[in-house]
């Protein structure tokens, strides 16, 4: 049991749960703004998941300062967490922001067009 009480596992669980909650929102809410909120929660979940997968137990941030370097010859790889997922998450956050902004612009214009935010009202194209 104790080995699961660790940041990686917890992050993973939180991430998965947020993804599920996000999907729930995306698939059940009729209001477009709510759907977008669902997406942003979904994205947050994925990001937490990514960082968790890069976490190495008990290691510090991947910034090589005096505390990490500990003098010449020390292998830095023994003391830091994985920097790659962090770089990826950074990218993912920015992409997520872009998409959210775009969705919101759409939401605004869709509302302008039909004065409603109900997603099932926008079915001019079907079948």
């Amino acid at each position, binding site marked *: 049991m104790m080995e699961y009480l660790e940041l990686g596992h917890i992050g993973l669980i939180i991430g998965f749960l*947020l993804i599920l909650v996000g999907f729930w929102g995306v698939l059940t809410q009729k209001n477009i*703004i709510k759907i977008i*909120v669902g997406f*942003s*929660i979904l994205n947050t979940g994925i990001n937490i998941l990514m*960082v968790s997968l890069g976490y190495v137990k008990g*290691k*510090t941030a991947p910034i090589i300062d005096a505390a990490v370097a500990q003098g010449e010859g020390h292998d830095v790889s023994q003391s830091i967490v994985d920097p790659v997922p*962090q770089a990826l998450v950074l990218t993912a956050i920015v992409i997520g922001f872009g998409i959210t902004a775009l969705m919101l612009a759409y939401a605004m214009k869709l509302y302008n067009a039909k004065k409603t935010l109900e997603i099932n009202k926008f079915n001019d194209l079907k079948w």
Partner: protein
Amino acid sequence: MNNEFVFVGIAIVVGIISIVLSLVAIHNKKLSVAIIAAGIVSLFASVLYLLMAAPDVAMTEASIGSGLSTLIFFYVLNKIKRSDA
């Protein structure tokens, strides 16, 4: 080692709160509440990132994920409310 346990404790608390808040964000009828809740979820996520030794991500999440996103959400909400009036 001690540090780690404190971190785990904080993470669990933060996690539970953010899941509750995310449910609030999905189910609250008021859009403004939903947006703020989602913003706070994002903010708590950046706390988690800090715990997991990812300060860069934490900064980005805090500024873009919870800051600018929420701001845009409110722009849109504001616009929609105003055109209702």
